């Protein structure tokens, strides 16, 4: 059951990503968790593309889009983190409460 | 648009100029690759120390009158002169003389001021030992003569720039027996004798 194997790996990765996303105090680690989740999605896409759509490979195309968006996300996300860091002098997520209420 | 194109043109010109000058520089380094290396490969080739070279000090026991001028002109009063006044002949008798070459800076003051020329500079410069105390030369050690570079069969002697013939720059290209720049006294006498005669 290779397809299932890939999917389970992806699911595990996704869950780890969610865990990191929620529990991390460090903003950079939050970004890394998001990357993990995106990668989990990518594994799914490629697995489906390989096992269900092997002649068309539409999943791979999607994976490329996901990768490009992830790159953009990382760049912008890090820029945001850094500019917050610059103004608040911390990367603690608990302190990022400018928009509360 | 035109301005932009101009800018692009300037940029291109600058790039070409840069390439040209870097190429010019590489030409210089490349040109050096065909020149003869100037390396003097030390243990196999040695430069002949100049006549005035201030190497290890040579000391002649018999000439010394224990006047201690060498001690007084030495920057650190280094020479150790051990003498005893002999009442019979009313002269100082030298008992021992030593210089520690681990401390000596070879300034040559002692040689310059020695009234009896008991001290002289040799051409020995490789004074390396495993124990620095071995560098403390007593009068016996000071009296030894160094081996000459030119007489060492394992060494190719090379002359320093000032001793090369007129016009020669590189010692490798010149045999060490060739005449150096400057005329011999008799030649000058001959030449300037003529000049002098003409003047008269």
């Amino acid at each position, binding site marked *: 059951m290779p397809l299932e194997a890939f999917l389970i790996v992806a699911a595990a990765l996704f869950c780890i990503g969610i865990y990191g996303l929620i529990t991390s105090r460090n903003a950079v680690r939050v970004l890394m968790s998001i990357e993990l989740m995106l990668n989990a999605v990518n594994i799914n896409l490629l697995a489906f593309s390989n096992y269900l759509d092997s002649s068309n490979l539409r999943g791979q195309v999607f994976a490329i889009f996901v990768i490009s968006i992830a790159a953009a996300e990382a*760049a912008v996300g890090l820029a945001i983190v850094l500019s917050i860091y610059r103004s608040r002098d911390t990367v603690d997520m608990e302190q990022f409460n400018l928009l509360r209420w | 648009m035109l301005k932009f194109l101009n800018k692009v043109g300037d940029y291109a010109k600058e790039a070409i100029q840069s390439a040209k000058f870097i190429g010019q520089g590489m030409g210089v380094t490349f040109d050096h690759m065909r020149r003869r290396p100037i390396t003097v490969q030390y243990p196999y080739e040695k430069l002949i120390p*100049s006549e005035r070279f201030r190497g290890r000090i040579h000391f002649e026991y018999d000439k010394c009158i224990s006047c201690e001028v060498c001690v007084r002109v030495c920057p650190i009063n280094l020479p150790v002169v051990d003498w005893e006044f002999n009442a019979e002949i009313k002269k100082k008798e030298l008992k021992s003389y030593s210089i520690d070459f681990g401390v000596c800076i070879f300034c040559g003051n002692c040689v310059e001021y020695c009234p009896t020329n008991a001290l002289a500079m040799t051409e020995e410069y490789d004074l390396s030992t495993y124990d620095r105390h071995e560098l403390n030369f007593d009068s016996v050690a000071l009296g030894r003569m160094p081996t000459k570079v030119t007489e060492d069969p394992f060494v190719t002697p090379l002359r*320093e720039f000032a001793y090369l013939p007129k016009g020669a720059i590189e010692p490798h290209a010149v045999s060490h027996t060739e005449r150096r720049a400057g005329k011999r006294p008799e030649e000058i006498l001959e030449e300037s004798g003529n000049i002098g005669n003409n003047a008269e």
Partner: protein
Amino acid sequence: MVMIETKAERMVINLGPHHPSMHGVLRLIVTLDGENVVDCEPVLGYLHRGMEKIAENRTIIQYLPYVTRWDYLATMFTEAITVNAPERLANVSVPRRASYIRMIMLELSRIASHLLWLGTFVADIGAQTPFFYVFREREIIYDLFEAATGMRMMHNYFRIGGVAADLPYGWVDKCEDFCNYLTPKIDEYERLISNNPIFRKRIEGLGTIGQDEAINWGLSGPMLRASGVKWDLRKIDHYELYDELDWEVQWDTSGDCLARYFVRVREMRESAKMILQALKALPGGSYENLEAQRVLAGPKSEWNGPDYQFISKKPSPTFKVPAGEHYVRVEAPKGELGVYLIGEDSVFPWRFKIRPPGFVNLQILPQLVRGMKLADIMAILGSVDIIMGEVDR
């Protein structure tokens, strides 16, 4: 991909005392913001040997071998100033021939110093090859020094009232050879370095010092001349016989590292020119000629006169520094090298204050490097041309 420029944590970085480009044992404590220099603090004293105090416990004769350890790359100048100071105080006259020999030696020493500066400066920017080329030429100068003085660096050649020995046989010819050989070599360096776009980009407009600023900071030498001040002690103080030679003060107006580079390179050419003139004008000509003239003209000839001696009177080991005080300076390759000498009619000077050019020129460094990049510190420091031996003394 984006390069994110951020306000990074300031980083205090310690350059030296053992750092490849610190020219000896200078230590710079640099505060960096990323690659930008926020602050720079030189720390001196790692090569302090108490040179001034040593001078107070030595006769001038005894002290002379020490002085080449101040600025060990422009050795003749330190000797010149050490003998000039008591000479002026005691009013000792110097024979013309000795003065010419001194000038030749000084200018050779200046070339040697500038050559080494060129090598290290370009090496500080990252080009290693010119370093080897300048050593080739410098070795020749040192060969000449060795033939005349007996040592390559620690000459102990100048004496109160002249020099220790006359020029040896054939020396004048070979020195001429060298000067004729040097100029094409300098052309070669310039081909290699001057127009190199990377070199230009790196140092053009870098470390600019304005005219007023340079004067206010007490800079001297090429640092000052590159900032548009035409100030050369050889012209101003009229010491030795520089007035008899035909030469120009080399200067520039832009005040940046490139200007300093050009000033020094031009000074090398000018020095070569001066040496050639001095060799021609040397009273009595080369040593072999002088001797021949003396033999020919007999014992009472003018060739035995005072102007054709290499030393007026050999200084006695108990030469006393007369009472009095004054300040004597020479134009060393790095700038104004001065000695403030106080004598009290004793064999030891009472005070022997050294004014090293490198020490004074170094002061401006923190101001120049602030706001620059890390790599610029080395370029600017290289262009200042310091020798820690004279900075720390």
